[in-house]
Each structure stands twice: as C-alpha cells, then as structure tokens.
C-alpha cells in the first residue's frame, strides 16, 4: 500500500474535568491508525473506550489535544472552517442514532440538498438529481424527499443517513455504531448495503462499534481499544482467531455463543 487515505498519528484528546480544577480526562491516549483506499478499519471497544471520540476528532467535531490527523498526506488536524467545508466532500459520517441524526423539522429533501447547494455550490437541479441518485442507491423511493424523518422507521432513516453521506461523494465514511440501534434483520440489511456501496463507490470505512461480531464481519483490519488506547491492531482474522492481548481475548470470550446452546445442556 502506498500512502494511506487517512492516517492518525499519536492522537491525544482530553476533556476538561466536570468541575473547574478537576483533572483533565484523557479520552484518547496516543492512538495511531491508518485506513487505506477501499479498506474498512474496525474500531472495537466498550463504552467509554474513546472510540467515538477518535471518530469525532477526525470529523473535526472535537479538537485534539495533540497528535496529527492526515488526509491523503495533508495535515487536517487544525483545519480552518474553509478547509473543513472542502473536507466535507471527502470525509463523511453515519451516526448511531437514526432518530436524532436527521432534523425533525425539515423534509428529507431539504436536509440532503442544503449542503450540496450551500457548501458545494451546486444548482438546485444538480443537487436534486444527486440526492435522487443517492436515495436510489440506498433503496429509498424517490418521494422520500418530500417526507419528514418522523414518517420513517429506524432502518429507513439509517438508509437516508447513508444517502446523506454518499451524496458528498466522499472517499471515507466514519460509521459510528451504524447498526447498534437497529433490529437484527434490519442490521443485516444495512450491513449488506454498506458492503455494496463500498464495492460500487470504492469507499473506505472507519467502522466504530462495540459489537465484535459486526466488526469481524465488516472489517479488513481491526483495532481494539481499551480506556482510550489501542491494545491490539492488525488484520481482522488474526485479531479474532489468535488475539495476542488479554483484553481482546476477554472481549471475544464474553460474546455469548448463539451456536453453542450451553444453557440447554445444564
């Protein structure tokens, strides 16, 4: 692999303590990772492990305390508002909560076309056709644009959220727990959709999840996070079949086995 598409070097993110004078809380501790073109990097960890903070730092939603974030070799750690606007055409996001991630008081069409017109300067017709194309790719009907988020189920909203990300024609999408709020059969549909889009659009994913099964299924490489630091990183099959760190082993062992009904034997 030549230059990675996205690289994070020695990232540290600290939050101020709850009260003035409290020690700063280190959410991300010396994290380095990289994502290649067309590749999925899984970021697995439990709540409070800092996995979402890493995603937010890459998206520019939180300011890193130190370290570097490089996109196509370009330092975007302290990107200005204008650079961020330009980056929005390269780095996109899908959030966990399909209920909160769309503005409830706007139609889907309004929410999706707005950034295309305001940020990328597309004309109305061009923006609308790109939105229509995006919605078709995620399997939503054309009349979706006239409806409000409340009219859709969780799975449909997650499809719309994916459409919002891909209409920017990004190279990489940060998927922050994209299926955690969804039912099992819907999760399978969304994971399949993400796999299809990766093929069709040569996308890279940074897949953030607490569910090691999802990460194993979706990722080429996996990084395991514990208390803000990466304890193990490598090809997914290696991490899941021969974990080298105790925490990874504990994480794998803790997944209840759907196939081995031990309860039935007792």
């Amino acid at each position, binding site marked *: 692999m030549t230059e990675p598409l996205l690289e994070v070097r020695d990232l540290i993110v600290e939050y101020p303590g709850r009260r003035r004078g409290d020690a700063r809380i280190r959410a991300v501790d010396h994290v380095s990772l990289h994502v290649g073109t067309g590749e999925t990097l899984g970021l697995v960890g*439990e*709540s409070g492990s800092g996995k979402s903070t890493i995603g937010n730092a890459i*998206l*520019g939603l939180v300011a890193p305390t130190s370290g570097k974030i490089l996109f196509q070799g370009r330092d975007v750690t302290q990107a200005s*508002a204008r650079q961020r*606007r*330009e*980056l929005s055409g390269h780095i996109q996001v899908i*959030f966990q909560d399909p*209920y*909160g*991630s*769309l*503005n*409830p*008081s706007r139609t889907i069409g309004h929410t999706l076309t*707005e*950034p295309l017109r*305001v*940020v*990328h300067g597309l004309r109305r017709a061009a923006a609308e056709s790109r939105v229509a194309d995006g919605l078709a790719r995620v*399997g*939503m*009907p054309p*009349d979706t644009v006239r409806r*409000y988020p409340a009219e*859709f*189920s969780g*799975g*449909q*909203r997650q499809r719309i959220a994916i459409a*919002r990300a891909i209409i*920017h024609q990004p190279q990489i999408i940060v998927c922050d727990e994209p299926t955690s709020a969804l039912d*099992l*059969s*819907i*999760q*399978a*549909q969304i994971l*399949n959709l993400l796999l299809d889009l990766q093929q069709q659009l040569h996308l890279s994913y940074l897949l953030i999840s607490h*569910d090691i*099964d*999802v990460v*194993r*299924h*979706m*990722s080429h490489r996996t990084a395991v996070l514990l208390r803000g630091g990466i304890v193990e990183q490598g090809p997914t*099959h290696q991490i899941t079949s021969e974990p080298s760190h105790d925490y990874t082993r*504990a*994480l794998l*062992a*803790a*997944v*209840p086995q*759907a*196939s081995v*009904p031990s*309860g*039935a034997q*007792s």
Partner: protein
Amino acid sequence: MTTTTSTTRQATDPANPETSRAADGTGGGGASPRSGRRTWRAALGRPLAVVSLVYLVLLVVAAIAAPAVAPFDPADLDLDSVLAGPSAEHLLGTDALGRDVLSRLIYGGRVSLLNAAIAALTFLVVGVVGGLAAGFYRGWVDRAITGVVDIMIAIPGLIILLVVLAVFGGNMTVAMVALGVLAAPGFARVMRAVTLAVRAEPYIAAAQVSGLPNRRIIVHHVIPRVTGPILVQFSLFCGAALLVDAGLAYLGFGAQPPTPTWGGMIVEASTVMQQQPWLLVPAGATLGLATLAFALLGDAVRDATEERTGRTAFRSRRAPAVANREPVSVPAGDEPTPTALLRLRHVSIALPVNGALTTVVDDVNLDVEAGETVGLVGESGCGKSITASAVLGLLPAGAQITGGQIWFDGTDLTSAQPRTIQKLRGSRIAMIAQDPIASLDPVFSVGQQVSELVRRHHGGSRAAARTHTLELLANVSLRDPDRVASSYPHELSGGMAQRVALAMALAGDPDLLIADEPTTALDVTVQAEILELLQRLQRERGMAVLLITHDWGVVGSACHRANVMYAGQVVETCDVASMFRSPSHPYTVGLLQSTPHQATPLEHLRAVPGAVPAPGAWPAGCHFAPRCALAAADCGAAPIGLAEAAPKHLTRCLHHDQIARLEAP
C-alpha cells in the same frame, strides 16, 4: 405510506411503534418537531388563544389607525360634560376635563404599546442572541455570557431603571431598552438550556460534517426547534412590559399630559376616584386584559409545543373487564403442561393506536415450568414486552386482554382481582428491566431501596432487614455490599445497577423472574457476568426465568427453551438446541441467518427483506408471508395454527417441511 410499501425494502406505517418511538425521542430540547408555524397553528386551535390574539390585534390596529377610528381628538375639552359616565356620544364617558375616554384610550395605546414593543424587542434580541451563542458555541463564549447573566440577575432592576430615567431625563425609549436588557438574562438562561439540548442532537453534528457554516446551522437548524420557548417567553414579557410602562407613568415618568397614555389615564382617574370611580375601569381593564391576553397566548403556545413532544396520551379508558371476552375453550391436545408455573393460552391483547383498539398480541401460548429459563425472542414491535406486562398486570392505560387466559400456579390472572395480582407481583413474580439505573429511585440509597422491599415481604426489625439486605447484595456478587448499600444509583455502573435491580427482585423470593432485555444496555463483558449470575441464582433458588431478548447469543447461553415472536404471535417454540440445529419457521431461520456471528466476513448476510409490519397492518393469514421465500397461496388464506414439526417443537408454518430450501446457499 401506501406508495412506498411496494417499492422499498422496508416500508412502514406511521402507526408503526418504531416510528412513534421516534416521535418521543425528538423532545430533547423541549422544542417542536416541526417548525414554529405548526406551533402557532396548534396554539390557535384553542378558543381562549384566538380570543386573546384577536383582542391584541384589535388594540394594535386601533392604536395605529387612531386618527381614523377615534371619535374625538384626545385633547378636545368638553367642559360641559365633565366626569360623565358612558353615553351614546361618549361611549366610555369623559374625564375630569371632559375629554372623550375612548379616544384617549385609543391614542394612549400608541404610546404604551410602542413602549412595550421597544422593551420586548430588546428583550427578544438580547435574550435569544445571548442564549443561542452560549448554548451553541459553549466553551469560553458560554462561560462569559453565563457570567454576565449571573451578575445581571443579581442587579435590582427597578432601581437601575429609575437611575436610567434620571440620567436620561425621563427618556422612555432609553428606559424601555434598559428594561428589555435587564429582563433578558433570565430569558437567555432558558434559551441556553434549550439550545444545549438541541445542540447535542446528532443532526447538528451531521450538518457540521456536511460543511455547513455555524451561522447557517443556528438559523436553519437550531432556531426552528426552539421557537416554542421563544414565543412563550416573549409573549409573557410583552404583558410584563405593558405593566412596567404603566407603573412608570404612575411614578410620573414618560409622556407628560396632555399626551394620553394608559398609565397616565389611570393616574388621572385615581385623583378623581371619589367623584367618578368608573373612570378607572376603561384604562384599567384595557391594560389588565392585554396582560392577561399575552399570558394566555403564552400558555397556549407552551401547551401546543408540549403536546407534540410528549408521548401521545392514551385516553385512559377502563376496559369493560371480562365482559366482552369470548369464552375460549381449550381444545384437546392443547392442554397446558400440568406442572407449568406460568402458562398463557390463546392470549390476545389490544392497545388503542390512534384512537382505535388494535390487536398487538395475537393468540399467544407460552409455558414456563418451575425452575427453567425460557427465552422470548423477537425484534422490536413484536409484542414481547407487552406480553410480559400482561403477566404482571401492568398493561398501559387503555390496553386490554381481549382473549385467553394467563395461569400462574393455578390462578387465572385475567379473571383475578387486581389485589390478587398485586400480591403476586414482587413476591412471587418479579421483574428486572433493560435500563437498570432508570429503574432505581435516584433519591434513595441502594440500601434503603432494597431493605424497604425486604421489610415489605418479610417484616422484621430494621436491623434484621439490614442484614438480609446485605446478604442479598452479596448474593448478586457485589464485591463490597456495605459500600454499595450506602451509594446512590448515579454512583453505580450499569452492571452494578443491574445487580442491585436483581437483588431487589430477589427480595420477595420470587418463583418467576421476568427479565426484559436485562443485558441490552450493558457492555459485552458485563453482559456475560450478568448472564452467569442470572443462571447461578436460577439454579440455587429453583427460580423460573422468562427472558425477553433480541439477542441469539443471550438465548444460547442462558435459556433452556425459546419462543420466537413475530408480529404479535409466537411462531416457533422448542428447546434451544433444536432451535439452533433445526429451526422450523422461516422467520427463525431468517433471524438466525441475520447474525453476523458465524457469517463469512465481507460477504452478504442472508438478510430477511422488508420489516416487521405494524400492528393493524398484519396480513390476514400468515403474518410473515409477505417476507417469506416459502410463501404460497395457502399462506395468505386463513390464520395459521401451530403445527408440530417434531415432538415438543411447534411452528406456525404450513410449509415447515420445506424449510431446508432456505438453508441451501
């Protein structure tokens, strides 16, 4: 939604429980899901609000068009009729100098309403800008604005106002601006709080990632969500500003006679109160009603925003008890296992959805034997939790059991007195819920909450209860029971809180524990510990567990038998090993294949197309038929009964003998 049903892979109905859950979720900022325009429309559905608005509009219009509508010049003296009561010529009478009261009232509105408007606009701009900036930008902006707000709230407003008037020589415009500024900090605080809530929603972050500038995000995505609180505060302050204006006039500030103002008219009337008390009425009533109208309008706007953010209220209608239930005869061969601790037979439950009673649980049979763990598996909206609520007699208001029996240890709970069920609850049947921290009372310590239950179930002295409490806490593997007993719920981790909830459930030594998604909110390593604990307690106590879950892993590691629910029905029942080895209902197969656990990485999962239909939109025959690869003409013809795929293995599928077709690649 009719058009999308056929075209999308997962269409849904507005009545879908998932969708209504969404509507609940939007209330974060106490703001409206749609724009302020709809808030107004909802607010104006109320007669009092309409009357208030009409009155206020009349006042404003009259004041603006004063020269045209006023019958007399406000300064015209008519010394022949001084202090006259209402008459045909002077509709509201005349004052001490014989001037027409109605005309003075109309002209007075020009001054008073203008003053109030100046104050209110200042209030609006300062409060909204300050609050939005603090809530949206947070950090040092927030700290600076909050600091200023704190200081200003401590300043005595009236004194500052008098100082301003003294310095600016009684200039009312300056005074009204000062009034708006002085009152704005409280408003800014409200704005900051609602903005913070909206700011935390993911769609704001998504807009930022889209590259939208902050200014645009605030104007287009934050302000529309907080118009409710803005309108309420603004409306209330308009009334207050009118009163302050009148009060200042009473103190001799503002427009001087002969210019009419409402406050000035009250002052003049009060000097001749002995001769003509009527004179107080026109100005007093106009002012009082205006204040009242602003307050009523504010209330209406507040109610209108709250209505649509709150849960759709069930119209609490007492079920006509057992009367309208059809007697269900238990067919031969359908006899419950005589030993079963809990057995549900043909249980149907209906809930009011958009006013109409809709069946959400349909003909459910379920057995839980003493000492066994039974899984109830399915996706959201399948009726798992409502079935459990029915066992506990805790159905939501308006819901009713429309058929069948729930037998618990020989008692039919559907015909039992509420007192009987209440006695069972907590002592013989206990429950733990998904969100352990929310299920504990935040104001009492853990020890207080557990020992309250211990004393209720076992009586005894405080000391004995305390000992028993510590035993229970130790029993659920809490390492330091003493310390946990003295902690409050917010000091516990999710896993600890779930252990405490378990200890509370065990306080009554229950025979049956209903666990509703007990590990869903927990981390996977904690989940494993809780499942292990649940199994140990169940073995030690010989307790039966009904485990509601959507997670096959939980079923596999904790359950003896499992029931799969789909769209209100139990579609498959058997022991867990058979369920995994030879599932006999297409939905079970699909749900098992949906788990990525054993799938080939980076390849398509065998996803079931479509989504669970909403109650009320169930197909006539097999509920799963529209999503099923085995569906044939006979599936949609009539309701499908339970068939025996193997001994003790029931499936609600006509074509279960062809199930192997689904397994093939």
